């Protein structure tokens, strides 16, 4: 990859630069206020690299969640990635070892950029994809570091910064609500979780809620298959 490729990829990634700095900063702040410093923020952003996954990760670490629960919830919050991969099968073909990194770094934002991006004339398309993916993750790591350092800076009261996770999920939900052909899955998800919360309490609410959701959605499939999405769902962090 050369300077020309990076220079061609950079303008495309500017919206992600803004977004990842901001969401990364909030992540770093949350992790710092939960008691894990900048080294942990870098490690998570380098090895996990998922917006909502890492937000959830902070609360799982803070709650001291057991590993099976960590695995299951990470799986559920990242389930949508399955769909991203399906539409990238062709694009990543023939990328050799770099394909592993492309798959690893397939976040919502990178997916959104790659699904519409075309390499400019004179730039190899695979180099271009790789540059976009690499730039995006560098913004994410940078944001995490800034947030973590801000959080440890003297006199900054971070009480309440964990609301960034709630706000992120609300923002994703608004986007999904507008794009959805049927609002039943979202309503079902909220109702099932409330029922689970009332039945088993806050500590163990998520697994029963997921069980109800998957079972109910499977039962409702004949009905929901007839309600196609109105538009392309807008990807969110």
């Amino acid at each position, binding site marked *: 990859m050369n300077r020309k490729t990076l220079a061609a990829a950079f303008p495309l990634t500017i919206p992600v630069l803004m*977004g990842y700095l*901001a*969401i990364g900063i*909030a992540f770093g702040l949350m992790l710092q206020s939960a*008691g*894990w410093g900048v080294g942990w923020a870098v490690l998570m952003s380098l*090895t*996990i690299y998922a917006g909502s*996954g890492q937000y*959830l*990760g902070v609360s*799982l*670490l*803070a709650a001291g*969640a057991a*590993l099976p629960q*960590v*695995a299951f919830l*990470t*799986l*559920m919050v*990242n*389930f949508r*990635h*399955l*769909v991203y*991969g*399906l539409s*990238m*099968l062709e694009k*990543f073909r023939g990328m050799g070892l770099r394909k592993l990194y492309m*798959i*690893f770094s397939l976040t919502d934002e990178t997916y959104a950029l790659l699904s519409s991006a075309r390499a400019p004339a004179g730039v190899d398309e695979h180099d271009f994809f790789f540059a976009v993916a690499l730039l995006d993750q560098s913004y994410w790591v940078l944001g995490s570091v800034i947030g973590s350092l801000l959080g440890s800076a003297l006199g900054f*009261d971070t*009480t*309440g910064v964990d*609301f*960034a996770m*709630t*706000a*992120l*999920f*609300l*923002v994703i939900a608004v986007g*999904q609500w507008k794009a959805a052909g049927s*609002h039943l*899955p*979202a309503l*079902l*998800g*909220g109702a*099932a*979780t409330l029922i689970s919360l009332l039945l088993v309490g*806050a500590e163990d609410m998520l697994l029963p*809620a*997921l069980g109800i959701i998957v079972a109910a*959605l*499977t039962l409702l*499939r004949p009905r929901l298959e007839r309600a196609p*999405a109105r538009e392309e769902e807008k990807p969110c962090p």
Partner: protein
Amino acid sequence: MPLTPIQTLASIAVMAVVTFLTRALPFLLFDRGDHPPKVVLYLGRVLPPAVIAMLIVYCLKGVTFSTPGGWLPPLIAGLTAVLLHLWKGNDLISIFGATALYMVLVQGVFA
């Protein structure tokens, strides 16, 4: 910090491996031109909104109704996030605006 560094490392490793697997699975299963089962495509489409709704309820599990400070800040800040997003449609403005308001509410107004 309820976990030891080793336990934290183990949790992060699990998150990293599972996240990578969710991204890699389509390539492992369908990279030879096979078509994914319809039920997988269906769940891939309907599960995300349900899971996000679940996570919103999960985020709000600490809400209490014994004092106004227990439920008014998340209600006000949550509505702010939704309204800002419907109005501007900008992730950053919505997330940062609502979070900043929430921090002001819990640190200042309802402290």
